[in-house]
């Protein structure tokens, strides 16, 4: 069975501070992992993806994520957040033989001055 858990429904950080959004997954096969972002009143866009290899993957706008097989995690990080990063972030899982992707419930990020 496949599942994705994002334990934090909301996260508030100050502009310029570092960020970590948590994601835990459960997969019976080799996991393919993604982070998507949804800006207000828009569709979803891909931030980054992990298929294999280097466990730290770089994405757009300074985001990165680290895959940990031992912890079944794929946390998203950013060194310094900007107010424009305020959005909802989704962690997404697909098995390598998967026919579709399973979304977490999302984490709403609010960046305050």
């Amino acid at each position, binding site marked *: 069975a496949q599942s994705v858990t*994002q334990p934090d*429904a909301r996260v508030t950080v100050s502009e310029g501070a570092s960020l970590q959004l948590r994601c835990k997954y459960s997969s019976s096969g080799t996991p*393919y992992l*993604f982070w*998507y972002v949804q800006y207000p009143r*828009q*569709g*979803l*866009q*891909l931030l980054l*993806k992990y298929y294999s290899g280097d466990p730290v993957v770089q994405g757009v706008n300074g985001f990165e994520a680290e895959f940990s097989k031992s912890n079944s995690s794929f946390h998203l990080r950013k060194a310094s957040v900007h107010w424009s990063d305020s959005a909802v972030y*989704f962690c*997404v899982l*697909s*098995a*390598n*033989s*998967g*026919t*579709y*992707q*399973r*979304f*977490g*419930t*999302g984490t709403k990020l609010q960046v305050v001055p």
Partner: protein
Amino acid sequence: EAAVTQSPRNKVTVTGGNVTLSCRQTNSHNYMYWYRQDTGHGLRLIHYSYGAGNLQIGDVPDGYKATRTTQEDFFLLLELASPSQTSLYFCASSDRGNTEVFFGKGTRLTVV
């Protein structure tokens, strides 16, 4: 750039009414999806398809039908709409089931 177009963008219907949501992709993708987004649930898969004439059941299919008429077009049908189907609906496409998914801008459906 990959494109997924949904119509209408907003729809209000009455309980028991019929609604059809349309989606067209110009990405030449094999897979197309219908999701609903509700607070506290994230995106939940209703139906998906991996080619014209194909239909697969997702995680929350009850009360919904779908049809993939061509590689480009995927429709979601609500034949007896209920207030519980008030939601934001997204159509999406991807080349394979485990590759990047491209989303439309969404359709906000209200059932009164």
